[in-house]
């Protein structure tokens, strides 16, 4: 069922949106949050489990120190305070994929709180206040079989895989975000994209949205323009791409505006996001009386990270992605558009590595954003999955610099590399690609060109040196492109006395 929606401009003319984002990040620790089970993605169901993550009677959790370390790093990168002492709590509720029927999470004592971060949209910077980042465990995964929709309703039975149960999660929660309504959706998208880059740079997560290692819950409410009273919010769960985050915010604004302007009321509820149709539908109604019966987890001792440890971790933090990007753009002299292409095309790190191997930034950009981006696109693979890496690009560029190749030949070498024909040297050998630098061979070709084009020579001699270009072209054609054009020009000029 598609609910009526208002045009976004009409919606924003009457209402101001308020957002809140909750992002769940699966950490890439080798073992789970509370036991030693491996965390590898995609293993056969229930092969990565033990009494602890299966919640068997008698089993007890023990906190994974690496997960705490990752949580602190994330907190620090988001300018949060790190708790001197915090605890886990039990969130009691029933769900078939939750083996203990409570989730061990943090409640009123998160490890990181009160932070801020910034995102840039269309050249403007927006400050996002952070509420908290807390640690918790993931649930198992239920597959509902036999129904038409794959949902539990109508299914004949359900299968549960507990491999994911107990994988460490960090939930990152913003305070309310109030930005101009026409920017809201873009800011939401930019925030999640920024988080992804940040988490990647920290090395704490694989940040694969397609595998669910980064999932966003999007809270949206509307208030009449200019009003300060907050409206009722909805929570759209598990939005799993940047684009969907943007679309989900826009959709909820237009949907809620339609409900409100027709005199209706917004229900406080969770909503499901539908990627295919771009709409949300009602999920579970969620009131403030939702009673999880939180209480401090008695099976775990409190977590009290020493200040020394926190400072040690702070010292290891990499440059924030946004800061680093601005610095690289400045150093490389890229335009905004070039920089955006590099980032969006996942070429930034490849260019960095290539430049580190001594290749001029402009050349690195040319190959990665040109030839290689095209090849990746044509073969439907990721840029970093190509059989050509920074080392190969640097090798080819070195051959261009020392005059062995020109750009045209270099492109053919890349073609050979992509086809797996061997090393650049082998490809040059096999395809006979090296530039001819032997003067006598070039002079012979020049002689042939002069002999074949007396009219051009005539023009040059009559005071039109620009006409010599045609002769160069003829020589290059004769040499099948394997001549250094500058060298040809030099020899021709000497020959013609210009």
């Amino acid at each position, binding site marked *: 069922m598609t609910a009526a929606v208002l045009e976004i401009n009409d919606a924003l003319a009457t209402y101001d949106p308020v957002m809140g984002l909750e992002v769940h990040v699966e950490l890439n620790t080798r073992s789970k949050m509370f036991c030693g089970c491996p965390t590898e993605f995609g293993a056969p169901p229930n092969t990565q489990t033990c009494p602890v993550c299966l919640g068997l*009677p008698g089993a007890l959790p023990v906190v994974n120190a690496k997960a705490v370390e990752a949580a602190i790093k994330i907190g620090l990168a988001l300018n949060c305070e790190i708790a001197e002492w915090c605890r886990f709590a*039990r969130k009691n509720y*029933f769900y078939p994929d939750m083996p203990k*029927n409570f989730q061990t999470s943090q409640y009123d004592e998160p490890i990181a709180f009160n932070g801020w971060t910034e995102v840039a949209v269309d050249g403007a910077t927006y400050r996002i206040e952070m509420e908290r980042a807390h640690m918790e465990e993931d649930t198992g995964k239920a597959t509902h079989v036999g129904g038409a929709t794959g949902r539990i309703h109508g299914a004949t039975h359900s299968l549960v895989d507990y491999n994911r149960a107990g994988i460490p999660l960090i939930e990152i929660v913003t305070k309310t975000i109030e930005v101009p309504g026409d920017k809201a959706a873009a800011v939401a998208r930019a925030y999640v994209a920024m988080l992804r880059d940040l988490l990647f740079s920290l090395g704490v997560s694989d940040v694969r949205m397609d595998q669910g290692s980064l999932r966003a819950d999007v809270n949206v409410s509307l208030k009449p323009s200019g009003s300060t009273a907050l409206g009722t919010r909805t929570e759209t769960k598990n939005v799993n791409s940047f684009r969907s985050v943007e679309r989900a915010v826009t959709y909820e604004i237009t949907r809620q505006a339609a409900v409100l302007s027709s005199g209706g009321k917004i229900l406080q509820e969770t909503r499901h996001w539908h990627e295919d149709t771009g709409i949300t539908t009602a999920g579970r109604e969620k009131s403030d009386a939702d009673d999880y*019966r939180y*209480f401090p987890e*008695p099976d775990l001792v409190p977590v009290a990270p020493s200040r020394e440890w926190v400072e040690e971790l702070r010292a290891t933090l990499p440059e924030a992605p946004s800061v680093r990007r601005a610095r690289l753009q400045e150093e490389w002299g890229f335009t905004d558009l070039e920089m955006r292409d590099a980032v969006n095309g996942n070429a930034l790190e490849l260019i960095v590595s290539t430049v580190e191997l001594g290749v001029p930034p402009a050349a690195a950009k040319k190959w990665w954003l040109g030839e290689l981006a095209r090849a990746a696109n044509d073969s439907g693979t990721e840029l970093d999955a190509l059989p050509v890496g920074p080392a190969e690009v640097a090798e080819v560029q070195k051959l261009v610099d020392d005059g062995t190749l020109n750009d045209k030949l270099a492109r053919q070498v890349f073609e050979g590399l992509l086809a797996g024909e061997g090393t650049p040297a082998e490809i040059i050998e096999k395809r006979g690609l090296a530039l001819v630098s032997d003067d006598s061979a070039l002079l012979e070709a020049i002689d042939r060109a002069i002999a074949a084009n007396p009219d051009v020579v005539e023009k040059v001699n009559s005071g039109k040196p620009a006409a010599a270009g045609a002769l160069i072209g003829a020589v290059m054609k004769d040499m099948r492109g394997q001549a250094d054009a500058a060298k040809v020009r030099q020899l021709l000029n000497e020959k013609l006395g210009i």
Partner: protein
Amino acid sequence: MTDLIRKTAAELADLMASKQASSVEITQAHLDRITAVDGDVRAFLHVDTEGALAQAKAVDDKRAAGEQLAPLAGVPLALKDVLTQEGVPTTAGSKILEGWKPPYDATVVKRLKAAGIVILGKTNMDEFAMGSSTENSAYGTTHNPWDLTRIPGGSGGGSSAAISAYEAPLAIGTDTGGSIRQPGAFTGTVGVKPTYGGTSRYGLIALASSLDTPGPCARTTLDAALLHEAIAGYDPMDSTSINQPVPAVVEAARNGDVAGLRIGVVKELGGDGYQPGVEARFHEAVELLTKLGAEVVEVSCPHFQYALPAYYLILPSEASSNLAKFDAMRYGLRVGDDGENSAEKVTALSREAGFGAEVKRRIILGTHALSSGYYDAYYGQAQKVRTLIARDFANAYEQVDVLVSPATPTTAFAIGDRIDDPIAMYKNDLCTIPSNLAGNAAASFPCGLADEDGLPVGFHVMAPVLRDDLLYKVGGALESALAEQWGGVLMTKAPELEVTR
């Protein structure tokens, strides 16, 4: 050697060391005793005859091969059914776990096995350790070997009854509010609740995580100490386990010198509601310790009066959460799974059939105490009381080395007497509960028989965290002084059980 069952664990160890008896003989003697008397006592839920004999034989083989063995290697033991033992049925006294065979050993069980201790079987208990009489077991009541019409105490009634019926020289119990000490007192045996975190909870089916403590049950102080040493110590699998050396309990039990020890009698644990015979034996024991050179003073712990209500909010709160996992989906009882009922309905039907009345009562209590709007008034308040009680202990331990009281207000009561009156039942744990709330060490030692009914009375000793050795010091002193009067340990005064086989 027909009297093998009357020997202490230490004596049995000596017999094996000097090759006068084998573990197989000793184990068989106890298995025979179980066959002979357990029809009346009903201490065991499951007897692992084959497993026990196999373990015994393995120990005998190792000894024959000249291997160096742990002090209690080859001695049989009865295990409370709340600890997981790989491949052996474990029910926690509940129908909801009927037939469940855990795929793993509790840390305590691992250590017992590593020490070569032979596990005879699993003992009866109040369902999920909720109770003070073992009448709440889903598998029937255990009877007190001193008087079969009486309860043996709870929740570890099976473990204490097993050792007092000479079915095993040693047993493991768990103590959440007194479940080792109170049955110990009622059966004239030694029951020790080690410091919380001194013994691992890994594999102990949780009642209340912040209170549960596994510990030893035995007929003598030395036996308890030997068993204590075998199971205690840091366990990386239990986050609340204490990473400190185990106190020198065996040495303390052997030495038993209380000269100069400062002993505090807790003023609040006595008087109204305490059986005169219990109070009389308690005061005589205090007298005796004074004669042995201990310094005795009266100490006040004003917040102990709130321990019972605080405990009965904290315990059900934690229990309500701990028991949520029993949803009939993955193990244990499943009722109504006929293809028509939803998963929720199957869970509800299974819980209805699988949980007993006391368990349901406490789940409801705990769920309510934790629910929003009531949390602060109940759970939060109880936690504050807990802090005050810990402070009472800390203050008291500034003046004295150990605190003492009767272990229970009365001797063992008759089966059926209090089962319909939960509050009366709860009051039985008045003396034992404060130690659980504070996490410190405590034990009950036999100190005589009450004049009114001729039933055993327990002498309760409480010691600071990780000073478990002080318990054994007092227990050892008391035991040897009383043995002089009685001509042996109190257990020798127990009436003979009629052998029914």
